[in-house]
């Protein structure tokens, strides 16, 4: 049960291995990896910069993780979220859930992603190809309405 907020990349295979090692109660591991897409609504982008709220980010990720652990029988969870300037194809976020059974692992991973999208204090700025030479240029990505409605199904 660990969360990391970092600029460094992560290795999904290694994270799975370290999470599941020596735990033969685990029968199902689900991972979600979010990556930087090469195209935004306005066309090609050359980079995406993630800003976050140091301190609150870690606290909020731990809250989200604790909520998942309280709801599903999980043997292990892992959240890694990167910040700083990233290029298309780069990893942004990794969520791993491990459980005895697949339903819990799938649901908890989706829950974590839905909450992370709407609760973790990150903001994304995309730099379109034509503005790539200009320092600080770009536009902030709007939060999706779809993200808020995705939360509805977890209400109880």
């Amino acid at each position, binding site marked *: 049960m660990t969360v990391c907020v970092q600029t460094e990349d992560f290795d999904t295979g290694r994270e799975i291995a370290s999470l599941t090692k020596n735990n033969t109660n685990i029968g199902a591991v689900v991972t979600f990896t979010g990556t930087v897409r090469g195209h935004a609504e306005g066309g090609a982008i050359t980079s995406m910069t993630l*800003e976050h709220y140091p*301190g*609150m980010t870690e606290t909020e990720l731990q809250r989200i993780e604790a909520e998942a652990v309280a709801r599903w029988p999980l043997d292990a969870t892992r959240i890694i979220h990167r910040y700083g300037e990233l290029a298309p194809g780069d990893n942004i976020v990794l969520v791993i859930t491990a459980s005895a059974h697949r339903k819990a692992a799938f649901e908890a991973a989706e829950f974590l992603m839905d909450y*992370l999208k709407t609760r973790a*204090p*990150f*903001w994304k700025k995309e730099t379109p190809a034509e503005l790539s030479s200009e320092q600080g240029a770009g536009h*902030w*990505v709007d939060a999706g309405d779809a*993200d808020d409605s995705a939360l509805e199904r977890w209400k109880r």
Partner: protein
Amino acid sequence: MTTADPKPVKLLYFAWVREKIGKPSEEIALPATVKTVAETIAWLQARGPEYADAFSRPQVIRTAINQTHVKADATIAGAREIAFFPPVTGG
């Protein structure tokens, strides 16, 4: 009993709120009449054109007090740190 001097609180700004205001944070002593998040935003709007710009659409501004998400009607009593930002886009 006299009114105590207002304690300074740390304000933080993120993403385009930060860009419009032109700084990531500042310490401000809010007047005692400012009691809620919404009142803090209204008070900041009057502070100068950059604040008026940043807070021109208060309904899209999100707020955290002491690193916890709160709503616009939340009290700021006990706040050491108030952060203002656009809706988050994690993941």
